[in-house]
Every structure is written in C-alpha cells, then in structure tokens.
C-alpha cells in the first residue's frame, strides 16, 4: 500500500488536497465522501475529518466538504471514464479498483420489475475501503487442515469484522502455493463480490497464489459448477455461504473430488448448526474442520479449530491471527 495508490483514486484537481493524507496510507482504513458533508476518514480505527489544508482534524469547523462535482469526478476517474463498463458493479453497489480497494456506492436506485436493481443514479455517497492484505494469518492453522498430504474440507466461521475474508484469502494462497504441510493445489475461487482476489478488469490484485483460478463477480452457485466443469480444481473456495442454493452447489462439488474451503457468518459452531440450510451439512460431516474466528482485546484471533465431530483439535490453543 503506497501513497501513490491512494492518490491514484483521485483526479488531478483533488490530488493536492489528498497529498498529505496519502502519506498515512498504511494506517488508512476508510475514506467516506458524501455530497455536502465533511470528508471523514478512518485511521487506525479512529474517525477523523479531512481538514481544508489536507491534514486530519477532530474539529468539524475545520473540515473539508465534498462537492457533487468532486464525487462525480472521483467516480468517473476510478471507472476510467467508462461508467458503462462498470454498470454491473455499480448495480451491485460497489467497485473494485487496482490494489484491491473497494468503493461502496450509494444514491438513488432505479428499479426494474419493482424489485430488481437496474442501476443507481445520482451517486452521492462513496465509501472507499482501503485494502490491507495481511499474509501469514493462516500459518498457525495450516497443520490442522491437512490429513497426510490431503487437504481437509474446511469451514471458516466468524462474526463480521473478525477477518473471515482475510483468513480465506491467506488459506487460498497457502493451499495454492503449497507449504511444508502439502504440495501446491489448483484452487478454484468463486469471488462473488471481488473481495478475496480484489480483481480489477479480471486481474487479481491480491496475492492468491500461483495455482488459483478466479471466477470474478459470479454468483456462488453458478461459479462453483462452472469452475468444476472448466478448470478441474483440487480445492473450491467460496466466501459466505448464505442460503440453501449455495450449500446445495457445494454438496454437488464434493462428490466431484473437490475439497471445499468456505466461510460463513456466525459466532459459534452451535449458532451455525442452527441455520436451517446448514443442519444437514453439519450432521453429515461434510466438513472435516471448522475454523472459528473471534476477537480478543480488539484483536482478531483463531478461537478454535474443531474436527468433524465438533471436538477441539488436539494440540490447538487459542492464538492471535
């Protein structure tokens, strides 16, 4: 993450204002632009206003405000002045830009058939989420996810904000590159929201390993089947199993010889077991390992690694990740 990457988000007439702030690229987590409102940034988990001279301030009177022209210019700039090419992303409410950073969009929604979003017009709110790729978070869990040379079907369980996607990305990278625990495997990654690989124009911006094939911006169910048919992956990785369709597609993939690596929202294994679409999967022990993430002292940790019988793996002790 460099100062230039931050500056490249903005068109030339805004760069002077962001020059000073971009120097804090490593600590920068979020930039929020709202028309007619002060520019806010999240820096080391603390909210600041961008001051008129380009620095940080807690005093709203000194804050710099976003104009409609600025927001439109930023949007046009990140879309390479080709909004039409990003219509699908805009419809979903976010864009991924080089570096894997994500820009959330909000404005007036145009509906089609009363319930399908056709487009978003008058985009007046931007949330620029700066990606900080953290490598090595899965290293401690890795030995528990192999049986001999065989990769085990693994489900990552985590509440929001506890590093579920970061963990998945790191595991994908480790399985793909190979490690002392096992050789490198072909990994098929279905990246529905471009969060894992952070692809921009089809090219992964994050390090997801040398043997990973990405199906970007593709619904999980279709993506899993497409990858199995076309890319013959050894491991299929998906983020956020959210409904019965996702689980059914996953269950079709397992008999094809693919190992599964998936994530799901949840605070505990019991909570996940209560989800109707997960009950059969857990009962039939489709997953060999459950990786439970959480927070301790405001730090993301691996709370436990459980086997198919939902017992804590022997030798495991809680660790920071």
């Amino acid at each position, binding site marked *: 993450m460099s100062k230039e990457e931050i*500056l*490249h988000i*903005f*068109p*030339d*007439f*805004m*760069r002077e204002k962001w020059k000073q702030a971009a120097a804090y690229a490593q600590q920068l987590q979020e930039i929020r632009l709202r028309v007619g409102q002060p520019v806010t940034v999240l820096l080391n988990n603390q909210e600041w206003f961008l001051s008129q001279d380009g620095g940080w301030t807690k005093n709203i009177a000194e804050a710099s405000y976003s104009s409609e022209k600025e927001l*439109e*210019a930023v949007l*046009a*700039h990140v*879309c*390479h*002045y*080709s*909004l*039409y*090419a*990003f*219509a699908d992303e*805009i419809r979903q409410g976010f864009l991924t830009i080089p570096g894997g950073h994500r820009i959330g969009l909000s404005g007036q929604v145009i509906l089609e058939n009363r319930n399908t979003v056709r*487009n*978003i*017009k008058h985009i007046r709110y931007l949330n620029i989420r700066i990606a900080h790729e953290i490598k090595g978070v899965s290293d401690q869990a890795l030995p528990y996810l192999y049986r001999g040379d065989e990769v085990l079907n693994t489900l990552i369980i985590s509440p929001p904000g506890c590093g579920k996607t970061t963990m998945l990305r790191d595991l994908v990278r480790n399985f793909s590159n190979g490690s002392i625990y096992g050789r490198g495997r072909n990994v098929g990654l279905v990246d529905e929201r471009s969060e894992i690989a952070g692809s921009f*124009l089809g090219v992964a911006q994050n390090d997801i390993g040398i043997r990973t094939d990405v199906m970007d911006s593709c619904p999980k169910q279709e993506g899993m089947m497409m990858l199995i048919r076309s890319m013959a992956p050894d491991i299929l990785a998906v983020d956020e199993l959210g409904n019965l369709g996702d689980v059914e597609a996953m269950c079709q993939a397992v008999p094809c010889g693919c190992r599964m690596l998936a994530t799901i929202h949840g605070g505990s294994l019991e909570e996940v077991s209560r989800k109707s679409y997960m009950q059969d999967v857990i009962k039939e022990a489709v997953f060999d390992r459950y990786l439970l993430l959480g927070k301790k002292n405001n730090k993301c940790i691996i709370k436990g690694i459980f086997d198919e019988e939902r017992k804590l793996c022997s030798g495991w002790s809680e660790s920071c990740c």
Partner: protein
Amino acid sequence: MLRMVGILLLMTGCIGLGYHTVSEEKQRIRELREIRHMMLRIQSEMTYGKRTLPEICNLLAENGEEPYRTIFRRIFQKAEENDGATLERIWMEEMENGLRNLPLKREEKTILKNLSGCNGIADENMQAAGVGQSLDVLTRQIDRAETEYENKSRVIMSISVTAGLFLSILLL
C-alpha cells in the same frame, strides 16, 4: 524546342496540381471511412466487450492504421500513467496533434475529437447509442464527400487541362 519543353512542363504542372487536388479529396474519403470503421469498433467493444475506453484505445492501437495507431497508443499510455488528467483532456490533446496533417475538414475532425466528451453514461447500450449519433453524422459526411468527389474530380481535371492549355497559348 524550348517552347515545346516549356509547354510540356506547364501542362504537366497544371495537370499535376489538378491530380493532387483530386487525390487529396480521395484521401479524405479514405480517412473518413477509416474513422467510421474505428467508431464501429468502439461501439461494438462498448456493447459486446464492455471494455473501458482506454482498453478500446489499446485495441485500436494494435489493429489500426497510422496515424490513428499512434494517436490511440498515446491515449492508452497516458491513461495508464494515471497522472490525474481526465480522459477527455488526453483524448482532445492527442486528437488535436494527431489529426493536424490529415486532409479532413474541421467539422470532420471535431466528430472524432468530441467522441470522449459523452462518456458519463452508465449503460453500455446508451453509451454506444451516443457513438452511433456521431457515426450517423460521419456517414452523412462520407456520402456527401463521395458525391462531391464524383462531381468535382472531372471538373477539376478539366479545369487543370484547360488552364494548362490557356497558359500555354498565352505564353506563346
């Protein structure tokens, strides 16, 4: 003998001037057709390929003819540099420089120059329709240029021969 050489040179000069004017007109039509071909490519890449404008410029740079190849390559390179300049500004600058020596009328150059001005539409079909409007104007311009060429070429060549003869008689 010297008179004969003089008459021959005079006639050659006049016919040459006429031929040059006619071939410049022919070249103009060729350039217009090339521009139309490129605009059709831009339109189809927008709708079917959903490529961004810089990407389309890169494709045109790979497959296009000179001087368009250089113009589009420079637009793509400058857009990739990402120094913050808008694509519209880069496009206008490069078109201004690249089209300077082409035998095109001002309004014909303007069609291509203004193409990047309408790039804020978030729907590929609507965006392509914008290019389509410029394409219609260009097609009309080509039709007009072809009709003009047919009518003018004979007249220009006749005038140049007549002028040559007239000057020869005058100087005799």
